[in-house]
């Protein structure tokens, strides 16, 4: 990675560009990779992730579908079972519920119910999360539903470099992957993204920032809220370590234990409502497996237990101040 040649080919990219380049490279590599979704053809998808791909690969591999999420995911299940590697786009993850049945009852259980005779290597990509004034139906973070379904994998990148490597790994994975794209940072965050193909393994977390006093465990767009909080806490001489899970199912239990062992204080940060959320799983795991390391309570920072608001979005979304308060609650125990 650090060689001069590789550096030359790297450019500052947005997540949109990184995701597009992952799709393009995988479609060039494997003709069985096909895309389907609403408005993904000439329109390029509402967030332009698939822009230009129909010109390159044609309408048989970039399929503009009817407005029918069950039809999209259901067709992808059939395609995946019979030799293709479909990547379905659900325009906003808030719209996934008409197709939820196909993911949860069908894709997730295909391998198990056929005792390994059929597999479902497919990806459902979808923008999730708030912060773009999307209101109640263009802002939600429904990862807990998918994480609670054995048979599905769930991925949520926090930056362009990871997004590309994780999407490539997801397309190559032999099980169905729900790939959650944090739309708030589609263009707001840039980093170096190599032109060539690379994979980031599913199930591996990353330390975004090292620190020794407290661990903030998070994923997706919230990684950047954690970074902001870490800067603030730095001024108070509190060194915050940030663990970016990158994959929620399977999550990197080793990396969690390592950071908890190092700091003894934990904040788990998610955008979704608190009750029944994924942060609760992480907190429970730490309580079960690492209670001996803990020097304070595990504190969750989450969205409120309400539907996602429109006018009051700012009040709803977890911010750096809330994370700082949680950090203090944990370390001042």
């Amino acid at each position: 990675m650090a060689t001069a040649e590789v550096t030359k080919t790297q450019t500052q990219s947005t997540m949109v560009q990184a995701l597009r380049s992952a799709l393009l490279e995988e479609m060039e590599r494997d003709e069985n990779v096909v895309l389907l979704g609403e408005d993904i053809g000439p329109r390029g998808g509402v967030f332009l992730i698939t822009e230009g791909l129909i010109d390159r690969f044609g309408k048989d591999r970039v399929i503009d579908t009817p407005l029918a999420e069950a039809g999209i995911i259901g067709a992808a299940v059939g395609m995946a079972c019979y030799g293709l590697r479909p990547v379905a786009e659900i325009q906003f993850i808030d719209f996934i519920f008409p197709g939820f049945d196909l993911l949860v009852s069908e894709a997730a259980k295909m391998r198990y119910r056929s005792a390994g005779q059929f597999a479902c290597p497919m990806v459902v990509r979808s923008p999730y999360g708030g912060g773009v004034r999307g209101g109640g139906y263009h802002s939600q973070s429904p990862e807990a539903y998918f994480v609670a379904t054995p048979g599905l994998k769930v991925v949520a990148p926090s930056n362009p470099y990871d997004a590309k490597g994780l999407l490539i790994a997801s397309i190559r994975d032999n099980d169905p992957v729900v790939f959650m794209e944090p739309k708030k940072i589609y263009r707001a965050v840039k980093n170096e993204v190599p032109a060539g193909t690379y994979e980031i393994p599913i199930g591996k977390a990353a330390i975004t920032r090292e620190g020794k006093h407290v661990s903030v465990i998070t994923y997706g767009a919230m990684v950047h809220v954690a970074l902001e909080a870490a800067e603030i806490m730095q001024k108070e001489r509190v060194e915050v370590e940030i663990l970016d899970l990158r994959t929620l199912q399977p999550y990197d239990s080793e990396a969690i234990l390592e950071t908890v062992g190092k700091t003894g204080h934990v904040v788990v940060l998610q955008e979704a409502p608190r009750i029944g959320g994924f942060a609760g799983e992480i907190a429970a795991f730490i309580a079960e497996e690492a209670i001996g390391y803990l020097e304070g309570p595990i504190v969750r920072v989450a969205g409120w237990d309400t539907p996602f608001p429109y006018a009051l979005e700012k009040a709803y979304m977890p911010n750096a101040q809330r994370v700082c308060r949680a950090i203090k609650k944990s370390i001042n125990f």
Partner: protein
Amino acid sequence: MLPEGLSAESLRDMYYCMVLTRTCDDRAFALNRQGKIPFAATCQGHEGVQVGAAYALKRGTDWIVPYYRDTALAIAFGVTPREQLMCLFARKADVFSSGRQFPNHYSVPHKNIASISSIIAAHVTHGVGMALAFKMRKEPAVTLITFGEGSTSEGEWHEALNFAGIHKVPAVFLCENNEFAISVPQRLQMAVENVADRAAAYGLPGVICEGTDPVATYLCVREAVERARQGGGPTLIEAKCYRAMSHTSDDNQLTYRTAEEIEALKVRDPIPRFEGWLKERGLIDDGTTEELKKKALAEVNEATDWAEEQPPPTEEDLYTHVYASGPLS
């Protein structure tokens, strides 16, 4: 004159397939009443449509995406009595799911039988995706997707047929209309008279056939299969049949239809009707029908005894095949 594409021998095979299915079906209910298996679903009254449709397909090339009432279709497509009984007993060596699924939830890739769940009409969307995959990969397969008329009320059914019509996928949609969605009669399921009427909404031909007649169904499905294979797109076929028994072993049809109504349906039983048809044409005689019924019973007896002896899955089997890499925790 014999129907095009069917020899005297294949007609007798079709008859045997219907008899064998009926014997398996009766056995399943008997085993359930004896407390030996937890659950049974019946296809009695549907044998004609299913066997007729199976014989219209090219074995080894075409695929079926069945639903849970398709025992005869599966048997005609190569599922053996031993395999059928193994799934009823939910044994470890059950080839469909290794004891993970309800009876008749087939998954037999080496016999071109897709995997199904219990979610009504979900499989119709898969069948369309599968047909699209075959088309894109330039494989000659036609996909036969079957369902009851109850399925046609589901949103997934609509989404699947809409998609199939747009992309002219090589599929045949076969509705086995038995007039009941468990207890709800057709008049409370749809305002149209025929399921086939719905085809217009998807730009497909909608065809009706007599589903208790295997030859009529065969001819109808055959034409649709050829059309699909030539790139002409899918067809929606509605085979009118009936359900002779309760929905499943857990249902009691006397709570929603009378004993007289049920008795009156018996004149439509596809097995004696097809037997008569074969006899009229001198293709079978009383001696042969008796012999075939005995043969079916012997096969099912042997399969029952054998399957009952097989071991169930063990607790370790709980954790296999969750992911390609195994379970997560």
